[in-house]
Structure formats: structure tokens, C-alpha cells
């Protein structure tokens, strides 16, 4: 079929375009051949623009030909026959993925262009665009993925590049510490994702979304899984989505992600990264349909996060945090919509929100001027209105609510206490056990085993070491 060939070709180009950008930037840095800023700009605009062009053409063709699902298959990336493992790389073009990939590419193109002038003359210019291209590749892979392992690949690219961009200013302590923290949360999400993928593979024998969710194109697919499996797989995927989108209880990383330069902030919690979790839920929506408890869980998490984020956004005093939590509010509403089964609404909401928030974030440093303009137009100072109902509550409740919002719902502390600490304790116990076994096996007398150095509050950027070597005075002064 002619359309299929054409879509295949165009789809192939859409996937390869950002990959080419990644290769060019990556190889040039690897070979220490420094591309000029202008050249980087041209490559960025050329490749991402080309990807955008092809993806828009696909949309046009699909609308004209009224075919709503095309699969571009690249075959198995890895095949291990003995254990029947195959990593199947294939891409799907349907009502969900095409709008998503167009959104991703439009925003990458815009933010990339913004970054070219914003990072002009910065020491890390090339590094930024290396991560940025990695991010674009991840977004395209994740949006278009037709198998769960392809989605995972894209997901990992996005996660890695996000963490690295947060730690972009690596000469200071806090960006690195916060990047690491975000990375840790992402790892939890990734682990859940991986477990879900294994479970689904195990149950269906393959990772194809089409196979898992029957033959109808999105959003009319029906899952073939039985409801118990659907619940567990869905739960794991929900954890993955919550980690990536900063839903409760993982919301704590959101303000930390602002350490990077403005364009990278715009990409993450403004536009793309933060929506990826919602996108995952959209992609596997047939699984959610399959299990009623799961559906309730999705709605519950979405609602709680929405209320939490709306509260927290109100008390944020810096423009980027306030936008980050405002973003979270909408993302969790999108999750609620997905839970309720309003899939188209969720998709439209997502696209609209991503565009709006990106614009707001890119012009966040103009806040002072914007306020002034508003004041002048209104002819007076801007009123600060606390929500009306707050006035009806007692001062003590107001106070507690405010404090909870200011401390961002204590989520970080709760995670540290309830998850990180027990986790470390278990592994420390294993460590002690292992040491004593070694001692026994090697015939040495049992020593008082020292604890692993990891038992520190995970928030601290400086890994605590118990040897008493003083740190050099220079680092001490500037910390």
C-alpha cells in the first residue's frame, strides 16, 4: 500500500532526525572537534525541523487517508534466543503518538532556538546541546514507541538527560546534589517500569502494545490481560508515571529540578518531561480500563496531587517554583481525566498545558516587568487574594495548612524516613552479614564491622565519610 510505504519512510525519518543530531553533537565532542555555536544551531534547527516536517506530513497523510494506525518496525535490537528475550524496536503512529511527537518536536525546536541565544558564550554550550539532543531523542522514542521496551528506551534517555541538565552547573554543590536526588527518584520509577515490562512480557509473550491491547487503534483498544494481572502491571506503571510526573509521593523533586538554565527548566516541568508519566498512562489506558481498583487508584492519586499542588503553588515565593507546582496541578488533573476515561480531553489538556507553561517559563525572568505592566494597566498595586474559604477556617488550621504547604507537604521528609532509611538499613544489615561471612570463611576473627557510609540523610550533598581527614579549607569556605 502506497500510504503505508510513505508513512514508513516518513516515520523512519522522524525517528532518525533527532538521533542524527545526537550523533553529530556526541561524535564531535568525543573527537574533540568543536562545532561553532552557529553550526550547532544549524544542526539543531535542521534535524529537529526536519523531524517536525515529516511528522506533520504523517499527520496530514493519516488524516487524508483516514488510517489511524501505522507501525514502523526496525526489528529486534537485541535477541537472546536461549531465554526467548528480544528487544523489539518498533514505532507506532496513531492518534496518540502523532500529536505527542509533534508537540515534542515543536517545543524542542522552540526551546532549542531559545537556548542557542540564551547559552551563547556559556562554557557548557555544547554540553547543554548534547543533553538536549539526548532529551529530544528520548521524547521522540517514547512518544512513538510501539513496544514497551522501546518506550522504556526513550524513557531512560529522557530521565538521564533531565538529571544531567539539572546538574548542568556542576561547579556548584546544590545543582549536583539535586540532580542526584531527581535521578534517584527516576530510578525508582524506572525500576517499576522495568518490572511492569517484564510482567507484561511474561503474560503476553511480547511487548507490543497492539498485542497487549487488542487490534483497535488508540483510544479504542481493549486489553487482553486478565484483571488481576492488569491491576499489578497497571500499579507498577502508575508508580513509574508518578515518579516521572512528580505525583504524590514523589512531588518533592519538582522544585529541585530548577537548578538548570531556564530553557532546561522549561523543557522539564514546563512542558515535556513532566507530562511523560501522563503520556504513559494514556498509552496503556486499556490496561487501566481493565481493572476497576486501578482506575480508582489513578483517580485518587491524581486528585490528591492536584489538591496538594494547588495549595503548594499558592505559597511559593519564587517564580519558577510557583510555575512548577502550577504545572503539577494540571498534570495531576490530566491523570484524573485519564482515570475517568476522558482520553481525548486529557490529550488536548496536555498539549494546551505544555504550550502555555513553556511560554510562561521562558518568560519567567520577565516577571518584574510583567507585574509593572499589569500594575500600570490596573492603575494600582496588584491585590493578593488568599482563597476565600481560607478566611473561614480557624487561625490554627490556617497556620498548619500554610506550614504544610510551605514545607511542600513534608513529602521529602516522609520519603526519607519511610523509604530511604529502611532501605538503607536493610542493605547495611546485608553488608554487615556479608562482612561477617567473609570473616568466618577466611578464618579471621570477627571485627567490629563499620557501617556503610551511606547512612546519611539523603538530602545532604556531601557524602559523609567517617575518617577524620579535614576537607580543604577552600571548599569549606565556599560551601
Amino acid at each position, binding site marked *: 500500500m502506497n500510504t503505508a510505504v510513505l508513512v514508513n519512510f516518513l516515520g523512519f525519518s522522524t525517528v532518525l532526525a533527532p538521533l542524527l543530531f545526537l550523533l553529530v553533537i556526541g561524535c564531535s565532542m568525543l573527537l574533540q572537534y568543536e562545532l561553532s555555536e552557529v553550526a550547532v544551531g544549524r544542526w539543531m534547527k535542521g534535524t529537529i525541523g526536519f523531524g517536525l516536517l515529516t511528522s506533520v506530513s504523517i499527520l496530514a497523510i493519516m488524516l487524508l487517508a483516514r488510517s489511524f494506525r501505522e507501525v514502523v518496525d526496525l526489528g529486534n535490537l537485541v535477541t537472546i534466543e536461549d531465554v526467548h528475550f528480544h528487544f523489539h524496536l518498533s514505532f507506532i503512529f496513531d492518534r496518540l503518538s502523532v500529536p505527542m511527537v509533534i508537540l515534542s518536536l515543536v517545543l524542542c525546536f522552540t526551546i532549542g532556538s531559545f537556548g542557542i541565544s540564551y547559552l551563547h558564550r556559556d562554557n557548557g554550550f555544547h554540553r547543554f546541546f548534547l543533553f538536549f539532543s539526548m532529551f529530544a531523542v528520548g521524547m521522540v522514542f517514547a512518544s512513538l514507541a510501539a513496544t514497551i521496551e522501546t518506550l522504556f528506551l526513550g524513557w531512560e534517555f529522557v530521565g538521564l538527560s533531565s538529571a544531567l541538565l539539572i546538574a548542568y552547573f556542576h561547579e556548584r554543590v546544590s545543582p549536583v546534589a539535586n540532580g542526584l536526588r531527581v535521578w534517584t527518584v527516576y530510578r525508582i520509577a524506572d525500576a517499576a517500569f522495568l518490572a511492569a515490562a517484564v510482567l507484561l512480557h511474561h503474560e503476553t509473550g511480547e511487548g507490543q502494545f497492539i498485542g497487549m491491547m487488542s487490534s483497535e487503534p488508540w483510544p479504542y483498544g481493549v486489553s487482553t490481560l486478565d484483571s488481576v494481572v492488569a491491576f499489578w502491571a497497571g500499579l507498577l506503571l502508575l508508580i513509574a508515571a508518578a515518579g516521572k510526573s512528580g505525583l504524590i509521593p514523589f512531588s518533592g523533586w519538582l522544585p529541585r529540578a530548577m537548578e538548570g538554565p531556564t530553557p532546561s527548566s522549561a523543557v522539564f516541568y514546563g512542558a515535556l518531561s513532566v507530562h511523560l508519566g501522563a503520556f504513559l498512562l494514556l498509552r496503556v489506558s486499556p490496561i487501566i480500563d481493565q481493572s476497576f481498583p486501578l482506575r480508582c487508584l489513578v483517580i485518587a492519586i491524581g486528585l490528591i496531587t492536584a489538591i496538594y499542588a494547588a495549595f503548594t503553588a499558592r505559597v511559593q515565593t519564587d517564580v519558577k517554583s510557583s510555575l512548577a507546582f502550577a504545572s503539577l496541578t494540571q498534570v495531576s488533573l490530566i491523570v484524573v481525566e485519564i482515570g475517568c476515561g476522558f482520553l481525548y480531553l486529557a490529550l488536548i489538556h496536555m498539549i494546551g498545558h*505544555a504550550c502555555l507553561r513553556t511560554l510562561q517559563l521562558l518568560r519567567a525572568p520577565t516577571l518584574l516587568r510583567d507585574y509593572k505592566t499589569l500594575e500600570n494597566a490596573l492603575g494600582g498595586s496588584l491585590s493578593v487574594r488568599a482563597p476565600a474559604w481560607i478566611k473561614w477556617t480557624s487561625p490554627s488550621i490556617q497556620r498548619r495548612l500554610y506550614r504544610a504547604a510551605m514545607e511542600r507537604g*513534608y513529602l521529602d521528609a516522609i520519603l526519607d*524516613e519511610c523509604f530511604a532509611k529502611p532501605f538503607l538499613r536493610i542493605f547495611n544489615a546485608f553488608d554487615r552479614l556479608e562482612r561477617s561471612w567473609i570473616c568466618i570463611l577466611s578464618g579471621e576473627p570477627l571485627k567490629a564491622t563499620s557501617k556503610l557510609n551511606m547512612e546519611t540523610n539523603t538530602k545532604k550533598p556531601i557524602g559523609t565519610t567517617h575518617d577524620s581527614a579535614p576537607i580543604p579549607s577552600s571548599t569549606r569556605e565556599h560551601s
Partner: protein
Amino acid sequence: MNVTVESKSTNESAASIVRHAIDHAAHYLPSQGPIAVFVHHNTLHAFESMRFEEAVEAGYNKYGSQPYWPEARYRKEYARGRITDKDIDAVLLDDLRQHGLEEIAQGTTRFELYQSLMKSPVLEGSDAELRWLTAQTDALDHFCQGVSEAVKSQMVDTMRHWTMRDLRTANAFRSDIQANVDASKHTENSFAIFKHLEAFFPFSTIEDWSKATWQKWTLHFLWQDCIRAGEATRSRRIAKQPYLRHRDRLLNEVSEDCDLIVHDLLIRFSAAMMDQGVATWQIPNRSEGFYRCFLTLFQDQVPWAERWMAPLAKIIRDEDLISKSPLESIAHSLSVMGVPISEWDSYIERTLLALPGWSGMVDQMATNADWTLSPAKVGSLDEFLAVRLVLDRIAVRFIANKNLCGQKSFHEILQLGSRSAIDSPLASCRQRAFHLFQTAQKLGWDPKLLSQWSTAQWQTIVDELEHCDGVSRRRVFQLAYERNYRIQVLDSISEHARGPLQVPAKVRLQVITCIDDREESFRRHLEELDPMIETFGAPGFFAVPMYFRGAADAHFIPLCPVIIKPKNYVEEVGPLSAVQAELRRSQTRRLLGKASHGVHLSSRSLISGTLTALLGSLSAFPLVARVLFPRLTSRIRSMFAGLVKPTIATRLELERIELTDDDAIDDNPCTEGFTLEEMANAIQRLAGDLGIANKFARLVVVLGHGSSSLNNPHESAYNCGACGGGRGGPNARANAAMANDPRVRRILRERGLAIDDSTYFLGAYHNTCNDAISYFDLERIPQSHQSDFLAASKTITEAAKRNAHERSRRFESIELDSSFDEALNHVEGRSEDLGQARPEYNHATNAVCIIARRGRTRGLFLDRRSFLNSYDPTTDDANGSILTRIMQAAVPVCGGINLEYYFSTVDSSGYGCGSKLPHNITSLIGVMEGAASDLRTGLSQQMVEIHEPVRILFLVETQPEVILSIMSKNPLIDNYIRNEWVQIATLDPNSANIQLFTQSGFHPYTPSEAILPKSKTSLDWYRGWRDHLGFARIESGMVHQEVKS
């Protein structure tokens, strides 16, 4: 009873100690106020009573920020010739004076030693690094960098002879009959080295040794000498900064920083307390002040809060903190923490300086920000400190309990690590040895020579080397760097000023601009375009200090230097004929404003946010358009904005309408508008400053300036400094309107300042970012002057375009071969580009301030690096009363700008606010890096990246005696000059003689023989060049070509 009285009085004395300590420490906090009004000031203002060189080192000790550029940076400048050998020699000679010629080693004077240290890099490293370097690399096989070939061969040759003749044979001899040799101790040493090295070199074939082997032998021998010297000598001991705070002790002991957890909370809380409208839900009980608000908010026990904060609620309740005043609370916390009263001063200072940006801002908000929406309560800094110490207390306890065995008391924590010495030697043996090793090579001290040296001699050398340590070398480099530029300035000006005074015989147009360095090129281009144009420079508020409110503005803002408090209110109003239309427009503006405010708020909330987001796809259009086509988008936007903008035909309500007695409000010293007397005073003052009396042209354009840019929290810093970080257009407009008023002219005529009836003043505004010029009150230009205006505006527009072009050579994002129009388009796009981190370079590269008649410098290319203040010494009296008032403004303002640039350049992350890229506007008062950092003060790296950190050189056209007398009457100016925060020189009004001020007073400056290059136009001179440019005579800018002598 007695006991309570006693404890009360101790409480009081404790509180007064705390009070005193806070006041003292507050002095050292950054004094930058809310960022919406950015006022340039000397970053080290608190140290102004010291000499500059001492102050920068004191600043280093206090803040840990660098006093000068890193040495490597100066070496780069040295390598490219910006610092020359001559400069370094001159500075060293000046420094050392007669001590320079003292011989400190055989054949080497102190001067030569220092010179050798300056001229080639000194490799310094930690002991371990040097150990690796000497053991694992071939560092000992080759001469170090900067040793001349002659010295190398001389050293090797001497060594060769010595080895062959003495060492080898004597050694052989010695081993036979040891007892008979009467070797001195020193030669003994050499023999020992010989013995030590013998095994490593093939002595059997010594006759066949290659050059390389001989070199290696020499250097290894030398190194052994130096090691022994290093061991025999002692280094100066330096006192380490004692660990004052518990946090420092703990950090040193357990490598965990309790400030991190404290700051995380404190920053959020302070931001909420200082918020000017970012959050839509204000902190409860804000009006009760920092301290009580905090205690109320945190009085509840929250089981799932962060663990370290668990004791907080209990402490607040048990110790009844809320009944204590902040000062009592501080005293209480300090005594609980076991800080001896004698150390309170320094403990409080270090504590406040742990988070300088926020502490400073809290202080500023309480003392100096009554213009903001919600300033902080008086005494907020005390409250801030009280809160901070409560948090410090529990954080220290928490970290200590977690990491230290057993329950340590606060007092014990303060003793942690005290056993280690407070002072330690500057360098280790190896470090000393390696330094000596390099020095010996550079100065050609061969081992034979060194074998004669006693330990005392070595010690002298070590002392000298340590005296000329890193900071001293950087200081010398800095002085040399400044000297190099100073000489260029003085040479060029003295040569240029030798010619006739460049005043046009017939003047068609006079343009009065701000003294700002950015207007230098604009004025030059105007003068080049038409020799009959004369330009003047005066502080950009044009002697009209006022509170101003534009027709579409919400508030009055002060437009004058920050040191002046204006007394008059001026409002811009629409014409009476268009009241209805104006009302409609303002209603539409209001409606639009409400709508966009609504979107702003609702996009951040829950329910209405959904609606906003569903329609959010629409924002894809402005998003893409603004990022990709900034200039086009802004044009379309301004087209639409034009529909609701106030009409251009507004006027200023400038004149004071006397109120009847009933209306008069006595308490209010401020008045609406100016009286005619006040107007006449303003014009008279400006005319006097400019020395323009009775020489007005037909058309005089008064040109204020400002700047507009997007995504730039520091936008206000780019505006006119003389308008307190505001835009100077209204001042220019007011000044012109005053000068045109016939009643004002009548008063002036009575006072002897005649302004001809044919003279017309026109107010205008120059946007220095996009080089747009706009004029005010055009519809009032009399018919007789319309053609003058048309001609003038054509020239001015052309000059602005060329100015844009000259500016653009600094921007890498536009090609060097662009045309005037392309350059103008480019700068227009820049000011509207969201992604532009450098809309313009502001005052970067400023280095000079010339206070003189323009005729003395007209036609000289100053590369936008000079403030140009007009002053005519011939119209001034013998005491220099006009000069006094000019300098009272110019010295602190230009000096402040220059010093802020200096400090932000030499330490961008310490004194400056680091890179602009991660900046995040907080509470509408400042910027943080990321979500929770200290408030960053100073200038960003992007603003200063092309700046050359040199102290500003004032060049005043007057006699030195006048300056000295002004200095004696004005302690502020005297302090700036005597403590060398600025440099100053005078230019004789009648000749080209220059006198330069040094510590010992003014001395005649002898210009060097360098010839000032000539160029036809500015374009010819700057074309194709991005970096700083030297001086040149621009012939088309001159009125009289130089008479050939």
C-alpha cells in the same frame, strides 16, 4: 528581688552587646536593595575608609571573595601585550623604591628577584602534587619556563667546569685522605649531593655526556641544593581563620554542614516574609514581624516534619521564646550555645555572613525600602538573626548527635578540633624548595654559587619569595594593568588637547546628553555627521529631581540620583480635548490588564487552570513567534498596543498651582509641580554646570536615556544611574519645558543668564538598548523651528544608527561586516528577544571619567569607555564651586559604577551574582540560583564579560590646587581619591599639561613619545575589530584641523 534586678540588668547589658554587634555586622552586609530599582554602588562600601589595596584583602578575609583576577588571567593579558614589561618594572620600582636596589644574593637585587617572579609563571602546588611532579615527571630534567638560553648555557657550563675540575677530583682525592681536606661546611654539602647523585649518572663516561645529560645533571644537583635549603629554612606562619561557629567545627570534624538544612528552611521562610506579591497566599501573621511570625508558625509539633526540626516546637514552648524580645532571644540562644560573651561580636557577624544575600536584603527591606509594596518592620534583621540562631541551635544538636559518639554539649562542640594549631606555616619544605628551584633557574644561580650560601642567606631569599606571594603578584599585575591603560589615556589626551579648542564657530544644534559612557559614541557620531553640532554631558536628571507618574503608570517613581530626595511631584496628563477618549483608553487598558492578570492567576490554580490550559494550545503561536521572530513579533505587538496606549499629545503638569490657604497641607513638604523660581534654578544650575551661558543654539535637544529589555531581572541596572535606575526621558522633557517657559527666561535674564528668544529646547529620550530616539512635545515646536527640527532629527537618527553599528561590533551574534541598517535591526531584535542574556553591555569597559570642555576631547575616539561630564573652568570661580558640585555627584556615582564592575569582574561568583542563566526571581526582590539559594547581589557574568577591571581615572580640566581644595572640603571625595579607590589627574585649562595624583600629591605627567593614530572616521577605526580599541584622532569629528607646525 535582688536576683531578678540583677538578672534584668545583665539581660539589658547582654541585649546592648547584641544590639551593638548586629549594627556592626550589618555594616558588612551587601547593601543592594530590591532589584526593581538597581543602584550601582561600591561593593566594598563598608571598607572605604581603608586604602583600596588593603580593603580588597580585608574583603577577601571577610567574604572569601577574590581581591584581584586570578594570576593566570593577568598572565594572559601579559602574553597578549596588554601588560608590558615596562609596566611591571615601573610598578615594582615604585613599590620597592630604594629597597629595590639592595642586593639580596650575590649579583641579584631585590628588584631583579621580583621581576623574575612576575615575568614567568611560578609553578605552585600542594606538597603531594610537587612530590609527584618531581618524582614521576621530567620536571627536573628541563629548565622551567621563562629561563633564557643564555642563562641556561651559562649555568650548565659553570656546572660542567665545576664538576670536572673540583667536584669529581676533589671527591676522589677526599676519599683517599679524608682528614686533610679543609672543606667548609658548604662544600661538604656539595660533596654530599655529589655522592647522592653519583649513582644515577654514568660517571665512567663523563667525557661523552651529551648536552642533555649535563643539563639534567645541573638541574638535579640544583634541586638537591634547594631541597637542603628548603629543609634548613623556615616559612612565615600564617594565622588560620579560627573556626568561630559550631557549624564550622562540625563541618571540619564530621564533614556535614548544618547550614544546609537551616538555610533550606530559612530561605523559604525569609522569602515568604519579604514577598512582594509572587505568592497568592501570604504567610499568616506576617504583620507581627519576622520573629513572632516564625514562632507562631512553627509552634505545632508535626510528627512527619523533617527529623532535625522535631525539638523546635518543644523549645519554643518550654523556653517561652515568644515572650522574649528578639534581642533577648539572641542573647539567650548564644548563651545556650555556650558562646563566650567576648566572642558574641564575631559570632554574630559570622552568622549573618553565612547567608549574606538574605541577611542584607532583610536589613535593606527594613531600613531602605519604604517605596516597596510591603516593606519589612524596623529591626527585622534582629528578628532574622534570632530565628536563625534558634534554628542553628537545633541543627547543630541534630548533626552532632547523629555523627559524634555520645552526647556532646555545645561547649564541647566549640572545642572540637581546637587542638590543631591555629597558625600554620605558609609552605612545606618541598614547596619552599621547589620555589627556590625555579627562582634559581630564572636568575641563573648555579650550584657552584649556591654552595657558598649560608642558611641565613637562603632564609633571606625564602623571606623575599614569600613576601612576593600570589596575592602580591596579582596586585602588581593589577597596578601594571591599570598603568598601561592610564598611560594610553593620558598620552592620547595630552596630545589631542595640544591642538586648538574644538568649538564650532557657528552652532546649528546643541545636544545635551547624560554623562553616561554609552553616550560617548553617540555624541561622537553626531559631531562627525555635522561639525556644526555641539554636544554636552550632564548627569541625566538634568537638574530636575522629581517624583514622576506617567499617563499610564500606577505609581509615582523618583527620577533623580539616590542621594537626593525629590521635593516635587510631576504628573503626565492627557490633553483636555481628549478626556473622553483618554478615559476610554484607560478603561480598555484596565480591562485588558484585568484579563491578563486573570490568566496569570488562574493558570496557577486548580479549577480555572484547567480551562486556561485547555485553551493553552493558542499560546503556541506567541511562543514560537516570540522566540523565533522577536523583532517582528514586537512590532505587531506594539501595533496593537498602540490602540490602547495613552495619546502622544500628553503634557506634564509641571507648574505648581499655588493652593489657597484652606487646601494647604502643612505637614507635607512635597509639592505638586515646581514654582517658577525652582524652574529657573534648575535651568541656571544646568547651564552653569555645562558652562553654556549665553551661547545657546537655535535648537537645543535635551536627551535623557534608559534601556528596555526582556527576560532581564536586572533591567533597572541598565537605566540611567543619575535617575536612580529609572528612565530619564521625563527629566529631559521637564527640563526643556522649563527652559522654554518665557516667564522662566525672564527670571533668568534678571539673573544674568540670557536665553535668546530664538532658542528652543526639545526634550528627547534615547533607548540605549535598541538605539531608538523619541521626542517629546513635538506639537509645540514653533513654526519657526520646524525645519530646524526636521534637519536635526535626521542627523540624530543617523547618529543613533551609527551608534548601533559601533555597539554591534562587540556582539558576536552579528557579523562584523554588517551595514548600519542591519546593525540597527539587530539591536532592535536584541531588546525584544526573550532568549537574549546580553541585551546590551551596559557600563562594561568603563574606565575613564573626563570632566572638561568637550572642545578638549572632541574628535578623540574613546571607545565608549569614558564618562563625559561637561565643565568649563573658564566660567568657574577660583574655588571651583561649580566643579565642587559636579564632583560631589560624579566621584561617588561614576566611582561606584566602576567599582561595582571591578568587583563583579574579578570575582564573578563571589562579588557578582554569577551566571544569569539559572537566575530565578524571588519575592520580586532579587534573584536566586535555582529554587533555594542565597540571594545573589552584584552584576552577572554576562554583564561584565568584556569588562576590563581598572579603577576609574578622573581627568579634570582644572588646576591641581582647585582639586586639592575641593578634597580638603569634601571628605567623601578626599577619601575616594586618597585611598585610591579612583585615580585622578588634571588637565591644564590653557595647555596640554597633565598632572597626576599620587600619594604625595599632584606631579606633572610626562607623556611618552607615542604618536596618536589618525583615522578619517570612527567607522574606519573600529571596523572589523571586536576587542577593545585604542585611542585615535577622528578627523571628521574635528572642527579645526590641526595647524601644521
